[in-house]
């Protein structure tokens, strides 16, 4: 009965202790997963007359994309490789066997470290991941364009030098998507996590909820909620106390109002990163309060009117983001477009 529950739990949530038979099927079948990209889109036009002109060009473009995709896939399939594992301390284990020399981690296999051991993984040709003590990590997929692992518990430190959105780490409550960066990621026994970015950018995503985390910032995640709101590590102490309340409590929780007031009172212009994320989270009255405070710290451009922000209009949000002194929104929008979870 408990075996059935474990199996069904993993089958349903794709997290936690994997059922070996399901994990094996996942590893086998991953090769058939979607790997394409959005084809070039023609100029949108209304009416059939225009399409008589556009359609032949569109068909030609699609055919060209297919030929290019086929060539890319043929070349890409030659480069996929298991990950090399090196012991840094103690005796880590791959698939239950102690690592006492050069070893490899293949898709579907699990690497574990106990309280004494650490390991380093070479992620294909794109970077490396140090696995700290008391960690459990699975390699889900490794192929050109998508290197994906799952951190069930513990801590990893990742340094990735591949193009953005090539390296993904699934946790029980969010997926970390590399945008060209270095970071540490912790996952606790409850499935909650914390990411600390030391270089570049990371996106944290779960079921449509996204956080963009630059170097020097941290962001928590919790099961059932997904990623919280990022803050700079040097943000006032009120941020560290208030954000768990704002991110991981029900909208009607009575502690929210005070938490928001404390956070906004302590906010600096640099904390626009946090306030910008809060513009599209929480209750409507909370978002209005955030709008007013952020407007005093970083004046909104004309496009970011109160109404547009209240509607969570993406162009308005992007326009205000561009005033924060961080990278332009268009930068991560471009990288974001072909993401796969």
């Amino acid at each position: 009965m408990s075996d059935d529950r474990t199996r069904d739990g993993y089958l349903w949530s794709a997290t936690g202790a994997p059922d070996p038979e399901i994990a094996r099927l996942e590893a086998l079948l991953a090769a058939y997963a979607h790997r394409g990209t959005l084809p070039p889109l023609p100029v949108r036009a209304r009416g059939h007359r225009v399409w008589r002109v556009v359609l032949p060009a569109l068909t030609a473009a699609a055919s060209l994309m297919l030929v290019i995709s086929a060539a890319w896939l043929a070349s890409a399939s030659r480069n996929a490789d298991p990950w090399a594992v090196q012991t840094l301390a103690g005796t880590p284990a791959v698939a239950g066997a102690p690592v006492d020399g050069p070893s490899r981690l293949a898709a579907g296999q699990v690497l574990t470290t106990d309280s004494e051991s650490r390991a380093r993984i070479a992620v294909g040709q794109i970077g490396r991941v140090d696995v700290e003590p008391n960690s459990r990590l699975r390699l889900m997929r490794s192929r050109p364009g998508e290197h994906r692992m799952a951190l069930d518990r513990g801590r990893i430190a990742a340094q990735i030098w591949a193009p953005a959105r090539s390296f993904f780490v699934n946790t029980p409550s969010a997926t970390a998507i590399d945008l060209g960066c270095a970071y540490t990621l912790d996952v606790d026994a409850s499935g909650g996590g914390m990411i600390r970015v030391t270089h570049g950018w990371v996106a944290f995503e779960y079921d449509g909820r996204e956080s963009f985390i630059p170097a020097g910032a941290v962001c928590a995640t919790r099961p059932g909620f997904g990623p919280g709101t990022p803050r700079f590590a040097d943000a006032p102490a009120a941020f560290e106390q208030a954000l768990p309340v704002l991110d991981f409590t029900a909208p009607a929780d009575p502690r929210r109002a005070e938490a928001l007031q404390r956070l906004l009172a302590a906010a600096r212009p640099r904390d626009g990163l946090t306030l910008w994320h809060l513009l599209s989270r929480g209750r409507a009255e909370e978002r209005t309060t955030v709008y007013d405070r952020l407007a005093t710290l970083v004046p909104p451009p004309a496009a970011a009117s109160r109404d547009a922000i209240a509607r969570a209009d993406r162009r308005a949000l992007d326009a205000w983001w561009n005033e924060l002194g961080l990278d332009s929104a268009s930068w991560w929008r471009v990288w974001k477009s072909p993401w796969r979870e």
Partner: protein
Amino acid sequence: MADVLTTLEFVADGSTAIPVAPHTERFVAAHAADDGRLVSAARDGDRGAFASLYERYARVVHGLLLARVGPEHAEDLVQDVFLMAWRRLDDLRDPAAFGGWLVTITRNRAMDFHRRPTDFVELPEDVPVADDPSQRAEARAALDAIRGLPEAYRETLVLRLVEGLSGPEIASRTGLTPASVRVNLHRGMKLLREKLRR
């Protein structure tokens, strides 16, 4: 309510009958409001907005196609479905219903593919699978076994085992209720295990 009853009947029955509910219920995606905003922007020519919709639904579209056509054709048809959706965005009456609309386009495109010869340039048979021939054969056998299951199960299992979506993600992106997805996964996996052990 009708869906809940259907699910309960299905579980109590214990047979391998296909639950009707997954294909008859109304689509209510968890992302519906956001989809609506993206569709409106895409109608105005915002390619980035459409790219966001692609990012959200491409694996679902691919999975639904893979449940019906060979893997050598699925990627081609994904592109075809999204180009068709881009062209016909103005036909969509309720922008928030994009997910259900796209699922319908996908199923129709797969049926159309089987009905008449396609003018697509076909990709070679060697879709990138494992280098090891025995693993390659095993992967294909597993995929074929899933594709031999009743439709409701094969769609859900392809989305879970091939595309890597979790149960809640499948529910939110296909419009099936979580209860239906859970039942389809449970029953489908049981049937798949039996098939693979034969």
